[in-house]
């Protein structure tokens, strides 16, 4: 196998362009047979949510997602991996997170993207606060036990 790929990790306030990020991984190459993208968007919670405020730990957010991404490229034969996570105020319908995994074959790309999202949910230092349409503060989103379990399943059968 060739040298292990260096993943791209970006933490940013501004939006991202999914098509441009895919093109950034595939342009000028003929060895990629599969690209899996996951985009996470802000839901409006049946019209009740005005915005999500995403707080993050600058420095550690990059470092932790970098560690997760590095684990993914060591675990699966990937030809490209990009992870982008936004912070700040995000309105319903807007993008929050993007994972793009490129590989020769689909299975590695699917699994790596899935692993990235499961780990990122429970280990990347981001916290969501809700702002409600009625002007009230909806409070901090609570962590889900199902997200913790989702991350744990990647640890078994080593």
């Amino acid at each position, binding site marked *: 196998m060739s040298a292990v790929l260096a993943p791209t990790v970006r933490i940013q306030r501004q939006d991202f362009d999914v098509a441009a990020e895919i093109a950034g991984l595939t342009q000028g190459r003929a060895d990629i047979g599969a690209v899996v993208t996951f985009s*996470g968007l802000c839901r409006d919670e049946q019209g009740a949510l005005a915005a999500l405020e*995403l*707080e*993050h*730990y600058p*420095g*550690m957010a990059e*470092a*932790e997602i970098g560690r997760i991404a590095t684990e993914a490229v060591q675990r699966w034969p990937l030809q490209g991996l990009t992870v982008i*996570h936004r912070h700040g105020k995000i309105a319903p319908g807007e993008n*929050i*997170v993007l994972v793009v995994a490129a590989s020769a074959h689909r299975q590695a790309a699917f699994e790596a993207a899935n692993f990235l*999202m499961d780990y*990122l*949910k*429970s*280990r*990347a*230092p*981001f*916290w*969501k*606060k809700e702002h409600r349409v009625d002007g009230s503060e909806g409070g*901090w*989103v*609570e*962590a889900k036990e199902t*997200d*913790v379990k989702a991350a744990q399943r990647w640890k078994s059968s080593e």
Partner: protein
Amino acid sequence: MTTRLIYFAWVRERIGTSEEDVELPVGIETVADLLRWLQSRGEGYEHALQYPDVIRVAINQEHVDHHEKISGAREIALFPPMTGG
């Protein structure tokens, strides 16, 4: 030695500051010791840390558990379970 403590999300809101530099007293050796000591520093701390088991901790920007020794830590962050993605 001075240690920088950083707080996020509701831990930050309840304590009432996003970061502070503290001189850790002798005997504070682990993360669990630190949480116990902080709880005694006032109402906000008590409120933020009343269920220490749920508090997540990072030393020098890496996750650690509550048994971790804190000697030599430049930066210790306390925060709730993460909800990104």
